[in-house]
């Protein structure tokens, strides 16, 4: 079978390509150039930088597969970056990797792959996909719990899952690295990528301001009772649950209770802060819900994960029509953050998920 592997230049997708080639598939390596690198001076960090594209090429040469770099700058800008900036500007905390998966890797890249006669696109994600007796594609966590990336894949449709291959999903990270060393892949010792690939200096606020200057608009920081505690330079600088960087040290009450961001109110440009206890929520609603398992007719017991690093918590999930869902946790959860995903699991299976309102 002809398979396209989306090669980022990291160890996971490199091993994915090597495994498929070893299994005898007709493997084509594709790397996506996602932002303009023509000047060659901009220091991009983790994934997709020019060094990473070079690494991907070296791996492809080492495992004897053809490799091409595709220019997806325009699509990346129109889907992932514009969403990222828009979400922050609206007081939400975006999840760009998920958009990249569903709008680029398993959309535009799949289209390109089909043009090249390939029916599937493989990535280095730690997740597993299989087909049940009814013919439905099911998504499960990768077997290495510390590396599982199924959270970022909840929005894949049945069509997309049908074409998705995750060769490292049934391996532990250590085993993946060991395999890379054994095969002497040029990236065997390369560090894992961190943070968001297109903002290597991690200064999200400056990135957002550069794209949406109107976000540089000051506003008030208030407590839960609406009392003004201070000023801020723009709500895009905050995320729910954030404790550091509030700039309130001199103004915090003598009680010395640490203050957390509880809520962002974009229309008033207000940041609401309060004690940790006030971050607790027992319910949330999600929209843009995608059901990988069949949409349940009745309320469903599930464990629900609300952040990449969140321990999924027991809850009841009810489909509420129009791609919406209501989640009621058994126990209060800290920092339910609008813009992040709520992903519903049954054990290690992804039932579905949606965007937190």
């Amino acid at each position, binding site marked *: 079978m002809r398979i396209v592997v989306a090669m980022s230049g990291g160890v996971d997708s490199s091993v994915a390509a090597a495994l498929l080639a070893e299994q005898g598939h007709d493997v084509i390596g594709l790397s996506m150039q996602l932002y303009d*690198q023509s000047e060659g001076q901009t220091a991009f960090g983790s994934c997709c930088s020019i060094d990473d594209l070079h690494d991907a090429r070296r791996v492809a040469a080492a495992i004897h597969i053809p490799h091409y770099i595709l220019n997806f700058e325009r699509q990346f800008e129109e889907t992932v970056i514009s969403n990222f900036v828009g979400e922050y500007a609206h007081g939400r905390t975006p999840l760009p990797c998920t958009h990249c998966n569903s709008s680029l890797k398993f959309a*535009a890249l799949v289209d390109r792959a089909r043009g090249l006669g390939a029916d599937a696109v493989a990535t280095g994600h730690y997740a597993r996909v299989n087909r049940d007796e009814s013919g439905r594609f099911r998504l499960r966590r990768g077997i290495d719990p510390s590396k599982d990336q199924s959270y970022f894949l909840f929005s894949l449709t049945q069509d997309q899952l049908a074409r998705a291959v995750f060769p490292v999903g049934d391996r532990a990270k250590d085993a993946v690295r060991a395999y890379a060393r054994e095969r002497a892949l040029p990236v065997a010792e390369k560090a894992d990528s961190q943070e968001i690939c297109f903002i290597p200096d991690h200064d999200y606020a400056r990135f957002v301001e550069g794209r949406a200057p109107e976000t540089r608009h000051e506003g008030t920081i208030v407590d839960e009772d609406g009392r003004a505690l201070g000023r801020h330079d723009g709500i895009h600088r905050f995320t729910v649950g954030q404790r550091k960087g509030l700039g309130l040290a001199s103004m915090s009450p003598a009680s010395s209770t640490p203050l957390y961001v509880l809520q962002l109110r974009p229309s008033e440009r207000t940041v609401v802060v309060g004690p940790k206890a006030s971050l607790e929520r027992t319910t949330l609603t999600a929209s843009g819900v995608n059901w990988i398992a069949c949409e349940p007719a009745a309320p469903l017991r599930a464990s629900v994960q609300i952040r990449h690093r969140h321990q999924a918590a027991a809850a009841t999930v009810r489909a509420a029509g129009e791609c919406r869902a209501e989640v009621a946790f058994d126990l209060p959860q800290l920092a339910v953050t609008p813009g992040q995903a709520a992903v519903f699991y049954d054990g290690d299976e992804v039932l579905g998920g949606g965007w937190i309102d």
Partner: protein
Amino acid sequence: MASIGDGPNVVYSFRYHELAACYNERFTVRVYFDYNATTPLAPEVVDAVVRMTRDVFGNASSVHHFGQQAKAVVDDARSAVADLIGGDPSEVVFTSGGTEADNFAIRGAAAVFDTIEPSRKKHHLIASAIEHEAVLNTLKALGRTGWRISLLPLDQTGVLSVDRLQDVITDDTALVSVMHANNEIGTIQRITDLAAVAHAHGALMHTDAVQSVGKIPVSVRDLDVDLLSLSAHKFNGPKGAGALWIKRGTRIQATMTGGKHERNRRAGTENVPAIAGLGVAAALAAGKLTAEGPRLAALRDRLETGVLRDVTGTAVNGARDARVPNTTNISFDRVEAESLLIALDLEGIAVSTGSACSSGTLEPSHVLRAMGLSPHRTQNSLRFSLGMFSTEQEVDRVVEVLPRLVEKLRGLTRKAATG
């Protein structure tokens, strides 16, 4: 170390002379139609490079026997290059290739006005907008140091009109640089006419002839230029060797400084094996220009006719009459060139779009853009460039494969557009 996926059952057309009957179902045949990017070496060139590498190790500047041996090789090559372009050997300066020759011509000429003759107050440089990056980015760099740069646009024929030059040239103009043949569409510029305009304003005329030397007869006297760049690997010579022809009496400052090599015009120990290869390639090209040109033109026309006939929505970019014989640039409506190029490569057919950027992705062609073609058309065009080892079977194979690939890609484009 890496051999990019080719097993033992792959045959390269440029080794046909080694492997006769290779059109056999057991073989994957790779077709190479990217001669404007680079060419396979002529067997005689390979022999010369190998022999010189092994046997002639001397430094051409040395006084002793070994130096004299190397010097003789370099001098022979210099004569062969001079013969190919109708110049005098003393006017030929060897460089590391076309890019260095372009840099030398432009920076070296500009430096004369910056440092030696500042009183002449020439601070204007002109080029066509379809020059190779070696020229464009060199001009851009000089622009940052205070030179005024004019880039002349073209119409859809891809041929620069002399009036465009007339419009912008002044007595401040130090140098006009216009390529002889374009790398992407193959059109040949009216260098002689342009040179007359340049000279009437006291400007030097440089031509980047990297894509014409070895493909069509080139005479520096007929072109009436002052500076001409050429590159060995575009006409079956080795990479890393080229030359700048500098008309006797032209003032130019060395950009590579050091020892007194190349009559004090280009420092650095001569790359004797590569220069020898360039010389052999030049002699070979000179010997078969008259026969090879029509042969390639016939092949190219067969390809062009076949593609235009069998693939709907295709058109040739640029004027079809004034072109080097080996090149055609064709646009494929509703197909992304990037995808078509890859699909062809997976079928064993190597072609090209314009130029690749540093990471190897494809960018919209600045040449097609400068000709005023629509943004869409700049991104759906492919260049096919033929050469020494190209055959009729290869042409027919490409014509046979293309319709299927294009249809497949178009089917997906439609789906993507509606979905």
